[in-house]
């Protein structure tokens, strides 16, 4: 419960940029996960100094803070599960400085990925991480999740581009981590510690990112297979050739059908499609294309399409990025997409085993339809669960299935999240995976956040199951009816 004197003080410097209106606090209790918990207040700071004043107040009154970019997190990271304040970064959305000569850009956390790239394009540069949610994902959110997306195979993840961060610590200090230099061996890599911390270790208020020159040219190959394992094999063979494309994407039949239902795109609806993005000079691309076609044919591709036409490439890439939200189009009105086991990363060579294994697990769970897609070239898969979220049995079935899938991921040498993070919904499986380091991580959290105000109860701190505070109209018979 936020004390009234604290609310008064917030209003004294934020004015109408603090809201306790029931509709507002209800809306800010959602993200794109399965969870919902109402906030007690929402604040909209416009500067680092305002963030600092808010954090100091929260620390004084021991009120939880959940930072929020666009609220598109899939595992509950932006849900104020312990109540308190949600801090929206919609008003801290300026690109502060583009310094191409130093290969860097300085931004506020609310800047959106695609908007940043539209600006950088004017200079012939780009920020390579390219999440499917790039139209909406904020840079602050991407840093907090260590997001990456389609080009991680060649370019790496957000972590690899974070040069420096300005952070308001949980106790209200303003700290500058990292440097504005390409190289940095000056003590602990604190900026990297903040990457992927999901708002549990402090609030990021300014980000300096490394940028790259735009590639000269790109082409995209679509290779269609009637056997998903052979699609997986094609990916491994391309990498082993050796050939490192900008991106290698995988979509199974359920995903292809959903995206075809959702928009005008000429994807073939087959067992699996591999989409390969090649870049370089015209000659380099020509050579690589030959190799890719050869490998795909050898693995039984039933259809191979190539395009260097900007409109067609954009159509394919946008369709691929729309897979996740399109999933509810697969069985309209009967089954709905819920965010469970949304993300996992594997050694690249284990992709065929994982895809096969997931679908074998699916056969044992009749209430779930599973879609598998992802950035398979870098070993990162996503799965989408389609269930009827009004049915208790569907949730019980899905819960068991998630556990079996993550057991398989761990058995294959993978990790429970490649880019979407842990939040609430993946926390139990992360604990299983990181048995010998979880206590150490908790000690770091306690050292930086002694009053446990920063996005409390998430990630390393979550010690409950996954079906809690559900946003769907179902009674699972638990204490809170969830």
């Amino acid at each position: 419960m936020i004390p009234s004197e604290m609310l008064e003080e917030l209003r004294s410097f934020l004015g109408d940029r603090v809201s306790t209106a029931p509709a507002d606090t209800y809306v800010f209790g959602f993200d794109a996960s399965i969870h919902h918990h109402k906030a007690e207040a929402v604040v909209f700071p416009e500067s680092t100094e305002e963030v600092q004043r808010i954090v100091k107040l929260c620390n004084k009154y021991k009120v939880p803070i959940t930072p929020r970019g666009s609220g598109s997190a899939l595992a509950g990271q932006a849900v104020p599960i312990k109540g308190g304040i949600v801090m929206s970064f919609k008003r801290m959305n300026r690109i502060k400085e583009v310094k191409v000569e130093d290969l860097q850009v300085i931004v506020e956390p609310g800047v959106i990925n695609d908007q940043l790239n539209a600006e950088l394009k004017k200079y012939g540069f780009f920020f390579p991480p390219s999440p499917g949610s790039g139209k909406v994902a904020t840079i602050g959110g991407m840093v907090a999740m260590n997001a990456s997306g389609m080009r991680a195979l060649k370019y790496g993840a957000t972590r690899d581009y974070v040069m420096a961060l300005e952070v308001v610590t949980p106790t209200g200090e303003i700290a500058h981590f990292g440097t504005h230099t390409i190289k940095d061996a000056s003590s602990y890599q604190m900026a990297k510690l903040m990457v992927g911390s999901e708002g549990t270790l402090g609030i990021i208020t300014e980000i300096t990112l490394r940028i790259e020159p735009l590639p000269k040219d790109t082409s995209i190959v679509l290779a269609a297979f009637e056997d998903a394992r052979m699609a997986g094999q094609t990916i491994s063979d391309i990498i082993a050739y050796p050939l490192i494309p900008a991106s290698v994407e995988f979509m199974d039949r359920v995903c292809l059908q959903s995206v075809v239902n959702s928009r005008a795109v000429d994807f073939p609806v087959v067992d699996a499609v591999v989409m390969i993005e090649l870049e370089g000079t015209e000659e380099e691309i020509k050579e690589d294309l030959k190799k890719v076609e050869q490998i795909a044919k050898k693995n039984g591709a039933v259809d191979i399409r190539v395009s260097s036409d900007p409109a067609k490439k954009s159509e394919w890439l946008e369709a691929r990025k729309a897979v996740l939200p399109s999933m509810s189009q697969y069985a309209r009105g009967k089954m709905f997409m819920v965010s469970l086991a949304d993300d996992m990363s594997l050694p690249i060579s284990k992709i065929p085993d994982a895809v096969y294994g997931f679908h074998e697990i699916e056969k044992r769970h009749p209430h779930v339809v599973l879609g598998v897609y992802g950035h398979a070239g870098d070993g990162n898969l996503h799965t989408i669960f389609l269930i009827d979220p009004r049915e208790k049995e569907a949730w019980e079935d899905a819960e068991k299935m998630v556990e079996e899938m993550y057991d398989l991921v761990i058995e294959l040498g993978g990790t429970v999240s490649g880019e979407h993070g842990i939040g609430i919904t993946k926390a139990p499986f992360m604990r299983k995976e990181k048995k010998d380091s979880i206590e150490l991580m908790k000690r770091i959290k306690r050292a930086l956040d002694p009053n446990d105000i920063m996005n409390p109860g998430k990630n390393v701190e979550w010690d409950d199951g996954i079906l809690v505070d559900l946003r769907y109209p179902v009674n699972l018979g638990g204490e809170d009816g969830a």
Partner: protein
Amino acid sequence: MVLEEYVDQMMQCTSCSFCTVTCPVMNVLLTDASSPRGRVQIAYGLYTGELELDESASKRLYECTTCGMCDHSCPSGVHIVDVIKAARKVVYPEFSVEKQRSFVNNIGEKGHTYGEAKEPVWAFTGHEPKENAEIAYFMGCKITAESGHAQGIAAVRILEHLNEDFTTLNEVCCGAPLMYMGAPEEKIRAQMEKNMAEIRKRGVKKVIFSCPSCYYMFSKVYPKYVDISDIEFQHIVEYLDGKLDMDDFDSGTEPITYHDPCHLGRTFGVYEEPRKLIKLIPDADYMEMEHNRENSLCCGAGGSLALYEPSLTKKMAERRVSESDGRIIVSACPNCVGNFSKHTKAMSIEELLWNKMKK
């Protein structure tokens, strides 16, 4: 509860937020609570009972122009505007504002948004209604009430100039404002019945419109209640497309640009017809705004927002006007033209064409 019909739509929302970043209201107010996703979540909360109906819920539901950018952006295929309109039916009885209720009363009691017609709606055009014409021209309240009639006069003059066999109508409000506000359905139905009786009386097989909202009502809403499958509906720019050529026009214009009205564009996909008509004017000084066609930004006046929160309408109009670079904004919607005229020079496409036509 009316929202029950939309539960599947609400559950289909994956909360991806794609609609949020494109919403012109959200981009002014900068809060997720006033985004399409937020409005769907509020509707969902009202349906489940987790959220109590109060002033804060109604405010967020009415802070929307129903421009349809969200429907256009939604990869999950949620009919967001339909959900919002349904939720407004829940909100209207207790939380509509006085200005909205006065509009509704005017329409119910006197037929029009502006109250009682002082003279027949067609009077200022001098073109009397007649029976058994080929087509009817439906003027719409906005033109008869607030735009100095210029758009209606120009439309009628163009049709006369082309020797079209057409009639004006003793029409009443199409009912669009009632629907946008969430007013009781029987009031909308009463408007439909009056208008359809008049159209039947004239014996026409086609009705053309200057107002995209009227066009929307007749094409998409009326058929749910009355059988009008034998009558064709068109916006005037669709009707005129192909009937004029460059020889009909004097050359040159002041610097102009075209604003795509939300319904005409995103609902009906009418993007090229108005541009083709404008470009018939030889040497037209024409340039597109940054957001055009399906990405066009709402003028801010739609969905009854101008009644509910005029200051937000003003901010949205200013944002859109800033893209026009000082050019005259030409549009095919009297609501957009009326709204822009408060901030910059704007005119209807009918006026532009009629002014430039060789007489």
